[in-house]
């Protein structure tokens, strides 16, 4: 974050002639294709970095939930977040920083696997936890498996 402090406007205004400093501070806009592509890669890099950090933060929040929640079903509820949204955000950041079509195909494959397999595993874990009696009934609003 050093370029924010060096590029502060007070440093330019204190040097005397404002016109010369203004033209030096903002050069003429370059509308060529090469400049546009360079700007796009910078934006994609920053968006990728933001999604990587967001995915890692979501994984951390889910880990706190897995550690703190009282029973198996609420822990499953917390553990779903890094499995789906956290991994998808991290894969979005990965594809925004790699920017190749072949890598994008592989990353989409990983995302589809996560999206397709997480509900099946969660269903099996939840049903097994219910049958083993690992459910805190005071935390349930409705028990739709009670009469079966």
């Amino acid at each position, binding site marked *: 974050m050093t370029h924010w402090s060096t590029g502060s406007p007070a440093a330019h205004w204190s040097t005397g002639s404002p016109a010369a400093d203004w033209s030096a501070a903002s050069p003429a806009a370059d509308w060529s294709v090469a400049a546009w592509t360079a700007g796009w890669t910078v934006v994609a890099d920053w968006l990728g*970095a933001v999604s990587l950090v967001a995915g*890692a933060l979501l994984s951390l929040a889910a880990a706190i939930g897995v550690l703190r929640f009282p029973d198996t079903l609420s822990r499953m509820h917390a553990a779903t977040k*890094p499995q789906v949204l956290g991994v998808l955000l991290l894969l979005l950041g990965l594809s925004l920083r*790699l920017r190749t079509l072949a890598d994008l195909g592989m*990353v989409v494959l*990983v995302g589809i*696997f996560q999206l397709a397999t997480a509900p099946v*595993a969660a269903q099996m874990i939840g049903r097994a936890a219910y049958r083993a009696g690992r459910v805190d009934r005071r935390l349930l609003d409705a028990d739709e498996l009670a009469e079966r």
Partner: protein
Amino acid sequence: MNDLLAVIIAGLLSVTALLALIRLYRGPSLMDRVVAADMLLATIVGAVGAEAAINRHATTLPVLVVLALLGFVGSVSLVRFAAREQP
């Protein structure tokens, strides 16, 4: 920017993996351990992907595919094993 990003993401994902390991150690039943192991594997998928994103290489992308399938197979087989153990 890359160094700062690497430090931030390594710290966040390390704490995530540590908390999942604590739940894996403490979990009162096998189901809690399966949930924690599944979350630990999702964290590892995220960590491998973040490392590939920071260093801009694509050599570990097949590892991501294998890990995404391995988590499913592992948790489903463990739950089947546990369901057979219970009366």
